[in-house]
Every structure is written in structure tokens, then in C-alpha cells.
């Protein structure tokens, strides 16, 4: 197994705050690797260390077999990085931005033109190639930024929340592009606040306060969800969880989800009609109950709720 990214016991502090507190992981070539975590969990810091923009305080990181400290220049020519904030030139056109980055990476003119044509088609930005970046919609900006990271055909892509602020349709298109890139053999490390996107990854890392909370394939992580989970719904209204109400015994977690309520039961012996009776006093509009399998969002909420209590 060839590993494109190898991280060993990484630590990083910012003014006394632990951004990373002992993270270790290995990402194999061709993997679509997802990073999830609460805000401030350390995702951007991890990406910045891998992309050689920031040095760790302790530990090591290797990308494409090269050390991020000693061989940072070599690494930079082999990777692509898309930071959280749109960082291209607003007053340059789509085409001009791509040419600029091609030149920065030393892509030869003939090769550059061929790659640009391919990328413009791939990202469906060809009809807008002369439009200035500032006049692009959010989704189009992200596609442009992605294209600029690909212009020098990197082996590894690091994407920091690339679909934030992007509408659902454009998000769907963006992920279709990522899947094509993965099929071409590019290793992709992507942080995302969208749990449905997290499920599309080959492997996931849940970071919390700079530490690894969970690491593995999405379905394997979901299999570790400890409670039976139920969806409570009403045909007539969106249900809301009442605040400052004591939870009945046997309920571990209760939270809104897409107009319904999810209930995780610590008492695993109750049948559905019994659970509904238990819930009715605090949720009078509840009408029906259905057992469901947890999704990544449910797992995330469970993990963070655990952390709050401990």
C-alpha cells in the first residue's frame, strides 16, 4: 500500500491553544479522505501543515513520500490546495486566473493551453471564460478555484470546505467532478461541514479539539453508533424540541432533523409505541415513529454530545 499522506503525532499550538494535539493517520494513494469536526477542531490547521504553509510544533508529516519541512518546495509542485476563502484574483477573468496559475507552476505554454481547454470543459466554465472572477456565482467561483488547483496535474488535492456557500445544485456538480478526479487516481483530502458529503468519502476523520475522535470508513464508523435511533414525525407540522424540559428516562439524545425529531434511546428495550407514549408529553404534536439507521450527522451529534458531558 502506498501512502500519499503520513502524519505522525502532530501538535500545533496557537497562542497557547491546542489546534492539533497528537494527530496520527495515513492516507493511501487514490483515497477520497474526509475531515469533519466542529469549528476550531483543527481541520484547517491539519490541511495547512500538509500543504507546507504552516510548520507543526511537534511530530511529522510526509506528503508523496516527502517531508513537509525539509522538502516543502518539492511537495508544493505536486499538490493542489484550495483554501476556505476564495483566494483568486477577482479582477482577472476565468481564463486569466487559470493562465496565471499555470505560469506560476511553470506549466509549458503548449501543455497549458491543452490543460486549460480540458479544465474549462470539465468544470463547465468554458462559456464564462472571459467573465471576471468577481462576477461569478458562488458555485462557479469554487469550480474556478478547483480548476486552478488542477492546472499543474497534482497527485494530491487538499480542499478546505470547498462547497461552503454553494447551492445544492452546484454542490452536486462539484462532487461529480471530485469523483471523476478520484477515478483518475488523484488523492483528495477534503474538509466539509456537510455530513451528506462526508458519507461520500472513502475514509473519514472526526477531529475534536485537535484530537482524533474517530477514523475509518463511513459505514464502519456508523456501525459503532451505540443507540437504537428513531424518527418522530408529524404529518401536519415541523416538530421542534421543547427547551428546558427534563428528558424522560431512557432517552439519550433528542434533536431536530429535517422537520422531524430524532430520538436515540439509551433504554434499548422499549418498543416503538412505548417510545411514542414516552415522548408525547414533551412533544404533543408527534404522530408517528419509525426506526432508522444513523447517518453521519447523527454520529456527529452523538460524538459531540458525549464530549460536552465529559
Amino acid at each position, binding site marked *: 500500500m502506498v501512502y500519499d499522506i503520513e502524519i505522525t503525532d502532530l501538535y500545533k499550538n*496557537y*497562542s497557547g491553544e491546542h489546534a492539533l494535539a497528537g494527530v496520527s493517520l495515513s492516507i493511501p494513494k487514490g483515497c477520497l479522505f474526509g475531515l*469533519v*469536526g*466542529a*469549528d*476550531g*477542531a483543527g481541520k484547517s490547521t491539519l490541511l495547512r501543515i500538509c500543504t507546507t504553509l504552516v510548520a507543526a510544533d511537534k511530530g511529522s508529516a510526509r506528503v508523496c513520500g516527502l517531508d513537509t519541512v525539509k522538502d516543502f518546495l518539492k511537495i508544493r509542485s505536486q499538490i493542489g490546495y484550495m483554501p*476556505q476563502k476564495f483566494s483568486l484574483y477577482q479582477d482577472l477573468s476565468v481564463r486569466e486566473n487559470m493562465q496565471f496559475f499555470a505560469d506560476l507552476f511553470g506549466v509549458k505554454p503548449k501543455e497549458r493551453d491543452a490543460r486549460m481547454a480540458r479544465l474549462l470543459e470539465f468544470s463547465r466554465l468554458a462559456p464564462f471564460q472571459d467573465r471576471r472572477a468577481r462576477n*461569478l*456565482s*458562488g*458555485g*462557479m467561483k469554487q469550480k474556478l478555484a478547483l480548476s486552478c488547483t488542477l492546472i499543474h496535474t497534482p497527485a494530491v488535492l487538499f480542499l478546505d*470546505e470547498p462547497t*461552503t*456557500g*454553494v*447551492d*445544492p*445544485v*452546484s*454542490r*452536486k456538480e462539484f462532487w461529480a467532478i471530485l469523483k471523476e478526479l478520484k477515478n483518475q487516481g488523484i488523492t483528495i483530502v477534503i474538509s466539509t*461541514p*456537510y*455530513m*451528506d458529503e462526508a458519507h461520500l468519502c472513502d475514509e473519514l476523520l472526526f477531529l475534536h479539539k485537535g484530537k482524533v475522535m474517530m477514523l475509518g470508513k463511513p459505514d464502519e464508523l456508523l456501525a459503532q453508533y451505540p443507540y437504537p435511533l428513531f424518527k418522530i414525525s408529524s404529518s*401536519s*407540522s*415541523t416538530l*421542534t424540541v421543547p*427547551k428546558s424540559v427534563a428528558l424522560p428516562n431512557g432517552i439519550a439524545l433528542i*434533536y*431536530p*432533523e*429535517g*422537520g422531524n425529531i430524532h430520538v436515540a434511546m439509551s433504554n434499548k428495550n422499549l418498543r416503538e409505541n412505548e417510545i411514542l407514549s414516552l415522548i408525547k408529553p414533551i412533544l404533543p404534536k408527534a404522530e408517528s415513529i419509525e426506526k432508522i439507521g444513523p447517518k453521519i*450527522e447523527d454520529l*456527529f*451529534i452523538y460524538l*459531540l*454530545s458525549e464530549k460536552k458531558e465529559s
Partner: protein
Amino acid sequence: MNYSIETNDLTKKFGSYTAVDHINVSVKQGEIFGFLGANGAGKTTAIRMLCGLLTPTSGSGHVAGFDIMKETSKIRSRIGYMSQKFSLYPDLAVRENLRLYGSLYGLDKNDLERRITEMSVQLGLVDLLPRITGSLPWGWQQRLSLACANLHKPQILFLDEPTGSVDPLSRRNFWELIQSLSEEGTTIFVTTHHMDEAEYCHRISIMINGKIAAIDSPQALKDQNRCDTLLDAFLAIVEGGGR
């Protein structure tokens, strides 16, 4: 019926390009109204007109009872606006940003300190008051931005993608706060790309290419499009709308 927000064929053109095309929206006091659409559909332009920040090309609108063409300063004192790009001062402390915004919205010293305390507690900012704003993670800056928009207890809160990249737990906390504001009578006019959040709205509208393509409750839109989730309904409406 007195609407909190009401528009009549509201239109905005930039040269030959029509960004907002004869939209009709009526929002009741205390309603949580989700204003959705694909990127570039015209939502931010529409919100700017409603806040009195941009002059319409044609049509009309009233916000908090005042005309959006002629009475924009009266509107501005009654609304709070949280924009996509927050206008917080990154080198000021959290407390200083709150004081600045409270003062800008006309709160006197005593009211201001009281409201800062209330908002800090409600949004979990108490421990962060002395911290430098620019040093906070994105999600905390967004909470601060919401606090600043709400200090003067506006009648209507305009939230332009308030939760951005914030994690699911923090987003739920945001929405609990928004729901409690709505229950207190504040009208919430919000744009979001998180379709699970749009489910918390009483009604939503979907803009496509400057026009309103659909406007109804989340449940009705799901039923009409035979979808289980609002995400699927949104995709059906937007992709079906010839995008």
C-alpha cells in the same frame, strides 16, 4: 393584514441584465421565511433592496411598514442585517465589536451593556468577550455577527447565509435561537444553502434566474414534488426549471 415584508413586482436591472424579475413576496410578523435559490439567482440583490441598501428599478416594497424606495432610513433602524461577508472588525475584541454595533444602532450605554450581557449568554459568547475577533474560528465569528445584528431588538432580522460552514451541532443551536426570536415576534428573513435548515422555516421561496419559481411551506413543497427531503424537492424544482 399587515405584513412585515411585502413586495409588488419588485425588479432590479443592471444594464440589460435583470437580476430580480417582478417578485411578489409577503411575510407576516414573526414568520421565519426562507429565501432560497441557486447561486446567482438574485437573492442577495433582492435582500439588499428590502434593506434599503439598493434602489429598485421598478415595482414596490414595504418593510416594517415603510417604503423601500422613499423611507430607507426608517427601515434601517428597525431591521438587523447579517451579511454573507460579515462586517466585523477583526482587530477589535468581541466586546468591542458588540459595543460598536450597539452604539451604531442607537442603544444608550445602560441598554447596551445589558443587551451585550443578554446576547453573550444566549449565543455562548461570554468567555470570548475579551478575545480578538479575527483570532476566532469562523463559526464563532458568525455567532458574534448574529449578536451584533440583534442587539437593538429589530422587528425583522435579515440573515444572508448565517450559518455558512458551521458544524451541525452549532447550526442547530443557531436555529434554536432563531426560532425563539421568531416566537418573541421577530420576523426572520433568511437565505441558506443548507436544505435541512430550510425545514425550520414556516414558508420558503425558491428563486431561479431572478424569478420566484415556488413559494410554500417546506412540507407542501415536498408533497408537491413527491420528495422526502427538502433537498430533493429543491433539486427537482431548480433542475426541472431548466437550469
